[in-house]
């Protein structure tokens, strides 16, 4: 089994990139792979707790929690969070905060890296 690092920079609402990334992570985990998810830029909006589900918008809270329960490692960029007013206590439980050097280190040690950068 391999290790996959996924870096996402697109917002939860207004782009389908996070939807794709989470579903890819789900598939990989279900196949037994290890997955690291890095949230940076507007993608840090996914890390926010207490997201309300509306049928008009992407809602990944439930699937994300389910995947973390199966071993998905989620790290959100601390500076990106802070600049958006998202404090540590606002995060979904189990999501860690760090700076980008951790993402690069994880990428260097992964079998595959999927970096979804441009929004």
């Amino acid at each position: 089994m391999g290790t996959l690092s996924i870096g996402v920079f697109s917002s939860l609402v207004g782009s389908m990139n996070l939807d794709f990334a989470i579903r890819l992570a789900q598939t990989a985990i279900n196949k037994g792979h290890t997955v690291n998810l890095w949230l940076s830029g507007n993608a840090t909006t996914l890390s926010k707790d207490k997201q309300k589900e509306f049928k008009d918008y992407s809602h990944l809270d439930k699937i994300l929690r389910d995947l973390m329960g199966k071993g998905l490692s989620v790290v959100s960029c601390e500076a990106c969070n802070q600049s958006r007013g998202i404090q540590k206590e606002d995060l979904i439980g189990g999501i860690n905060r760090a700076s980008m050097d951790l993402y690069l280190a994880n990428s260097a040690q992964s079998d595959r890296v999927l970096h979804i950068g441009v929004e």
Partner: protein
Amino acid sequence: MGELKNKIMFVVQRPPYKSEDPKLALTHALSSGVTSIHIDEEIVPTVAFIGDGVLNCIKDQKSMEAYGITSNERHIKNMLATDTKTLVCKEDIERLGIKEDRLIDASDMGAEMTIKVVPFNEILKEMEANDHLMFF
């Protein structure tokens, strides 16, 4: 630093300030220098500017005065000062009428590394030589 090396290339396609992407590309590239706190492996970054992303490389940016934020020029100068290979697409600066003497240099910081203007074909070759690609 460990003995192993991992090459990561950061490709910047977006113009400065209209998007967060170029800034994030530069900060990610700069953070390569501290990954040794996590792994016993050296990450060697290369940064390439293509398309409208080449606009990030014009010197004398006044973002602090205009927007109250640090300039991408400052980050690029820090990259050059830390010997990061930095490439700019020749075809794109020509398309936008940017002369090479308008590109950022960090000689005032003692940097020996300069921005290298290369044909897109060379950027493609550099992509093939890297372990990972990150498009911003």
